[in-house]
């Protein structure tokens, strides 16, 4: 730590610290890179499981009439698709990225709590095995929507108890992961890296981790009350017993709205790393980016009831939640403007990570626009619970969160594996994805405006054409992701053909680009000498 020359190739001194062999390496690992890999592979698997469920949905909606599944199974698919994608694909992917990158970005040798890190991950396969097993039980899986609104969710069979327990486990995993990330960021940064010198990805994850710690226990409380209502005769949400079914929605969305930002703030961080690299220009407005992220996180706690405008709130309540929701557009706008300003007068190239990052900025912003429209209460009386909402949240989650994860995968894959992916295949993957995802989700705006409710297995014939387009887009988008699978597997397991430089991308900034490629099993055993020019925001004086 006292000398400056320890940043490069320090793995050479540690031949005896390589990974264990075989399965036990992965089961007992406390290495942040191994655990990051486990998270990312798990999330990739869940992305395809959840995607298969989405294809069942789109197959049934391909044309009017019921051709493929019974309505109850359709409801199980919509419910499970959401639970698997949110808790199994998007969140673990971001945690995996945090595991790989946060220690390397702040110059720490590992996560602060490595054994807990192992446990955080290994809970997940069991939680999802339990959740998915409900599909094979006599009463079928949960079918009341991922929001689990009572009294409907309490009508299901006994698989309900498994679902609740699985959600508890996922919450435990998330809370432990979040504590670990906070502890790592606050305690293990390289000397001289004060908070306002941290890369933006680290900042967004620090804030996300606080959100997780605050809201996952609220979800646990809500589902525990469902459990006792279902099995132990309580009446938290049962009007006949003096309870209140709307109270569940308040508690759920007090978790649920911050949860939405848990799935998008790390994406902001990723894009804020990638755009400066390929614009070869420092990130514009670093400090305002940090404050905007923190503002969004704060606001996420006071807007929850905008998911419930049609439950019949008093006028004052509706006005408060409308205004608070509209205010979110301001810090979000600042972020988008900053990304554009970062690109402005840069020297841009468009490798696959940059394509996905630019795609993210444009398509996420479209999702933001429809979000702003949904905030307007009288208009929401029409939009609510229609395909307009479905289109909105898939723009922010698929072309938002998922695109950012793919951008991150392409961006850091060479650093993780030592192999460069095929740029041609990557571009095919991007362009096919961007065309098909819009064919999939853009017509859903029209369906919603024309009056098609969400979560229905069959529809009036006037909605037939757009549903057909959307289904074609869905299958094409799903198939396109096999290219991504191939690229990731080839880079991970393919033979290494060339030695890539430490700084894989010409314009890349950040401590992770100062270690060897592929990143050695242990990095930063000694703290690096951090210099301002090591981060993507360059001049940190402002």
């Amino acid at each position, binding site marked *: 730590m006292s000398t400056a020359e320890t940043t490069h190739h320090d793995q050479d001194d540690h031949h005896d610290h390589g990974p264990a062999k075989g399965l036990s390496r992965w089961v007992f690992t406390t290495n942040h890179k191994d655990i990051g890999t486990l998270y990312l592979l798990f999330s990739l698997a869940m992305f395809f499981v959840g995607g298969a469920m989405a294809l069942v949905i789109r197959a049934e909606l391909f044309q009017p009439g019921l051709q493929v*599944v019974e309505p109850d199974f359709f409801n199980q698919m919509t419910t499970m698709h959401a639970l698997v994608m949110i808790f199994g694909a998007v969140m673990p992917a971001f945690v995996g990225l945090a595991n790989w990158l946060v220690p390397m970005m702040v110059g720490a040798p590992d996560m602060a709590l490595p054994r807990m890190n192992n446990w955080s991950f290994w809970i997940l396969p069991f939680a999802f095995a339990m959740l998915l097993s409900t599909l094979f039980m006599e009463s079928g899986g949960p079918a009341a929507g991922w929001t689990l609104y009572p009294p409907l969710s309490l009508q299901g069979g006994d698989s309900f108890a498994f679902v609740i327990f699985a959600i508890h486990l996922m919450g435990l995993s998330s809370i432990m992961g979040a504590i670990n990330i906070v502890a790592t960021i606050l305690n293990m940064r390289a000397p001289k890296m004060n908070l306002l010198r941290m890369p933006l990805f680290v900042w967004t994850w620090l804030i996300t981790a606080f959100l997780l710690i605050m809201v996952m226990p609220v979800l646990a409380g809500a589902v525990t009350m469902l459990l006792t209502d279902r099995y132990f005769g309580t009446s938290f949400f049962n009007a006949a017993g003096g309870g209140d079914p709307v109270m569940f929605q308040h508690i759920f969305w007090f978790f649920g709205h911050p949860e939405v930002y848990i799935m998008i703030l790390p994406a902001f961080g990723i894009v804020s790393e990638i755009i400066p690299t390929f614009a070869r220009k420092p990130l514009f407005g670093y400090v305002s980016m940090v404050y905007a992220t923190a503002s969004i996180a704060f606001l996420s706690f006071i807007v929850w009831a905008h998911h419930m405008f049609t439950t019949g709130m008093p006028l004052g309540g509706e006005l408060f939640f409308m205004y608070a929701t509209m205010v979110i557009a301001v810090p979000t706008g600042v972020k988008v403007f900053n990304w554009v300003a970062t690109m402005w007068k840069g020297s841009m190239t468009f490798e696959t990570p940059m394509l996905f990052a630019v795609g993210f900025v444009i398509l996420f912003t479209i999702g933001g626009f429809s979000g702003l429209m949904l905030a307007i209460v*009288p208009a929401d009386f029409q939009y609510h619970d229609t395909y307009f909402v479905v289109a909105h949240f898939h723009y922010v989650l698929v072309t938002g969160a998922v695109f950012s994860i793919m951008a991150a995968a392409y961006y850091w894959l060479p650093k993780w594996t030592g192999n460069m992916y095929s740029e041609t295949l990557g571009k095919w993957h991007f362009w096919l994805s961007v065309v098909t995802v819009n064919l999939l989700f853009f017509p859903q705006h029209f369906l919603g405006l024309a009056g098609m409710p969400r979560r229905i297995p069959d529809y009036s014939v006037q909605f037939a054409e757009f549903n057909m387009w959307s289904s074609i887009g869905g299958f094409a988008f799903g198939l396109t992701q096999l290219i991504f699978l191939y690229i990731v597997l080839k880079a991970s397991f393919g033979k290494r053909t060339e030695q890539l430089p430490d700084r894989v991308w010409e314009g890349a900034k950040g401590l992770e680009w100062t270690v060897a490629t592929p990143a050695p099993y242990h990095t930063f055993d000694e703290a690096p000498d951090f210099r301002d020019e090591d981060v993507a925001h360059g001049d940190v004086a402002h």
Partner: protein
Amino acid sequence: MTNSKGVQRRSLGGLFHRAATLALLTLMAAPAWADYALNLTQGVSEFSERVYGLHMLILWICVVIGVLVFGAMFVSMYLHRKSRGHEPAQFSHSTKAEIVWTVIPILILVGMAIPATNTLVYMHQTGDSDMTVKITGYQWKWKYDYIEDDVSFLSNLDSASNSARQLNSGIDPATVDDYLLNVDNRVVLPINTKVRFLITADDVIHAWWVPDFGWKRDAIPGFVNEAWVEIKEPGIYRGQCAELCGKDHGFMPIVVEAVSRPAYQAWVDEQKQEQLVAEQNVERDWSQEELVAHGQAVYEAQCAACHQLNGQGLAPAFPALAGSPVANGPTEDHIDVVVNGRPGTAMQAFGDTLNEADIAAALTYTRSAWGNKASDTIQPRDVRAAKRG
């Protein structure tokens, strides 16, 4: 959705036409294309028109902002490329720019919030109504009670849609009139009358939504929500349940028929006449054949969604009636289950929604159908006795 006949063309030419329409709307969001069910309906009430105006205002603001922001991005992506030899600038902040793009959005938001607030205040004025209709959501039908006129009925998905919507029914939905948007009993309302709705539910949460009225409102058990409409044009307005309420959530439509005030009064008189007949039917003795014939119709409309046409039910939530101990057991127990429901399950208390003749007929049918051997007769007055007992 009054225009549904106009948009059912599925020919290739129609598709091209739709594609052109789509492209146009994407570019200009022109209100003239609203007829093609690409855009929000303007509806038939003052409120729905205001909502449409708000919707278009925000849409246009978003389009303008989008063109500016994405335009700047595309200009930059074209001009500031390495392949064009553009050298990167190194600026990383500008306080002036950051203040501008914080303050301008705030002003735009205030401009949106003012008309939105006005419209919302207007919507909340539920007082001074001319009549009140209570709407109750059930799995999976609606019940309407006209408070002043003392009319009350259930509204189910129509039987043509219901046959076509079964898995692999072999019936092309395009051949069914207003597929999934048609009911057996329409809600009839007078135009130019402020109608207040009291909206609630009996089992799970539903949501009552007719797009032409401009709003939806959740129907929540234990709560009574208020909403209102003053319909300007006579016509038939269709909508659906908008809150996931179980397996047949997609199959509980709403149809409102708006008529002139005299026509409404005539309809009320007709309903009263029918209720009188129904009342007499409870008092008289029914033959076994009569009960079974009427019971089959009631069963198919009210019971078959869960217990299935063949009486086999859907395990585990909806038990089979064929061979069931209840349907083959003592009549009192069978009447009790149907009249009072089974709390904690999906079995409703039909004593609240069906009249005694319907219940008696359905019970009699159930006890003799699908090999059930009780085959006894339950008279409407037996049901009435049980209800009062």
